[in-house]
């Protein structure tokens, strides 16, 4: 069987894991190289073990574990409030979703009602988080294709958003803002005006990025047709978020199963049809615009007074009744979920964090890498938008 036939047989069947014939490594025809764990093209510390024939990848194995700190096990031995310092570290560029879902799971099991103002503040916080994360992703994607101007712009703009986070929560990266029952603080005075200014800057920047990056001939030539996700892979691999929406799949938890106050906000689910790295990028670019718009809507509609925290007992005395729940939210990469089991004590019995990178970065990546040119592997990896810490937790 020739190499191209082998690749074809793998691509035709979504459940084909192994090469039909093992590669004869002693023949001298193939070279094995490692991409990562430290590499600017990979979004975080994980590595790809690549087997090359010339400059084409014929086999890919992923290796994770470089960031394994056993978060889920750690949480079983800490009180509910102590865990807040743990959860936000599970997805470094996007910690707010961990805070929200952890708090939401506790509220769900305890039957706690959250004041409306707190829900608005949470929605605003999550959208700001999405904006900051998309800004970082655009920079990463552009950098892996050799366009180094855009990352400088987006990382600077992300810093403005981090300034807003600092004002709102006291922290730039790890906020620990959304606690069970509500949020820790209301917005500081004059926050809305300052946030609108940052949104205006971000809006202008997105238009420039569209011109410089998405209309760039080099970027187009390399990203179009890279890492095509065919429709039969979507459910077989559990593909969610912009990776699925880039294939025309109209699924978005914010719309399909609205949480917080997303049912009161005006937005559409953004899709594209190219199914490749370029169209996944386009979806994310449009969703960045959408986040800016949603932040403006939140600031406009949000009540400026009222309770932002439900009446809660002393944090050192929290006991959550026995129960079980699974809560989820749409992060920048798709369905992010927390599965929690409690047994009525001061400690959680089990937490499982469901991160979208788990499927995107391992099984899907191993599948899409085959047949790709070695020069495009970093771009392919970033186009799937993966964060390794949420894989190994």
């Amino acid at each position, binding site marked *: 069987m020739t190499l191209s036939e082998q690749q074809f047989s793998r691509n035709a069947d979504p459940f084909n894991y192994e090469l039909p014939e093992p590669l004869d490594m002693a023949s001298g025809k193939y070279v094995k190289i490692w991409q990562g764990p430290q590499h600017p093209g990979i979004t975080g510390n994980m590595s790809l073990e690549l087997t090359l024939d010339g400059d084409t990848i014929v086999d890919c194995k992923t290796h994770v574990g470089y960031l394994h700190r056993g978060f889920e096990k750690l949480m*079983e*031995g800490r009180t509910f409030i102590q865990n807040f310092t743990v959860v936000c570290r599970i997805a470094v560029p996007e910690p707010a979703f961990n805070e929200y879902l952890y708090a939401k799971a506790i509220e769900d099991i305890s039957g706690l009602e959250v004041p409306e103002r707190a829900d608005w503040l949470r929605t605003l916080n999550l959208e700001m988080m999405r904006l900051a994360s998309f800004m970082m992703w655009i920079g990463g994607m552009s950098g892996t294709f050799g366009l180094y101007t855009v990352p400088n712009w987006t990382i600077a703009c992300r810093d403005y958003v981090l300034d807003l986070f600092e004002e709102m929560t006291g922290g730039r990266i790890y906020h620990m803002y959304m606690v069970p029952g509500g949020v820790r603080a209301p917005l500081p005075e004059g926050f809305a005006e300052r946030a609108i200014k940052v949104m205006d800057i971000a809006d202008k920047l997105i238009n420039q990025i569209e011109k410089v990056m998405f209309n760039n001939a080099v970027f187009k030539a390399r990203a179009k047709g890279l890492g095509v996700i065919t429709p039969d892979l979507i459910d077989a691999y559990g593909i969610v978020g912009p990776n699925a929406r880039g294939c025309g799949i109209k699924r978005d938890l914010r719309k399909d199963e609205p949480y917080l106050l997303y049912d009161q906000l005006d937005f559409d689910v953004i899709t594209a049809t190219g199914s490749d790295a370029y169209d996944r990028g386009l979806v994310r670019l449009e969703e960045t615009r959408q986040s800016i718009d949603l932040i403006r809507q939140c600031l406009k509609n949000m009540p400026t007074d009222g309770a932002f925290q439900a009446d809660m007992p002393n944090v050192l005395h929290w006991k959550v009744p026995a129960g079980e729940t*699974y809560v989820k939210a749409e992060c920048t990469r798709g369905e992010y979920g927390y599965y929690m089991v409690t047994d009525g004590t001061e400690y959680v019995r089990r937490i499982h964090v469901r991160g979208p990178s788990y499927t995107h970065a391992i099984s899907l990546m191993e599948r899409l890498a085959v047949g790709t040119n070695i020069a495009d592997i970093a771009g392919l990896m970033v186009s799937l938008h993966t964060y390794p810490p949420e894989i190994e937790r």
Partner: protein
Amino acid sequence: MLLERLTKEFGITDIVERHARMTTIKVDKDKGERLIRELRDREGYVHLSFVACVDYIERGVFSIIYMLHSYDEKKDLGIHIEVDRENPEMTSIHTLWAQAWTYQRELREMYGINFPGSPRVDEEFCLEGWDQMPPMRRDFDTRKYSDEQFGHREGRASEDPREHMKAKLYPNRGGDEQ
């Protein structure tokens, strides 16, 4: 309706509606794979959100939970399947979802549950050269492991937050908050 049929055909038990969009059920180990296949093929539960495990050491079982999602119904269905803690083994579902083998490989490493036939199930996932008890089991003592592996560093002490705060807030009453 669906749950009634499943009760009749598969003998599911412990049906609990956890919230408006999520229900959990329990099924016997030998019927588990068949039930999951039926839900995926006939009932529209096409999305596998995750596979996880809860260690019920007091009952001597591992409860494996398969979280399925239906995009049509917009509902999650958690299926609990209990396996014996002594010789844990479960039917592999890697033929149903192409990402399932990753979860199974993780459960093999973290809990020691075997999934015969699952691709690369015995390969290391996160841990390299691990020769101890699978670390996510309840009886794995992280403190003891860390003390043995890394030793004590001078100048580092940890306090129980509750006792510390009591002593700080109520010093005149000997830390008695009453």
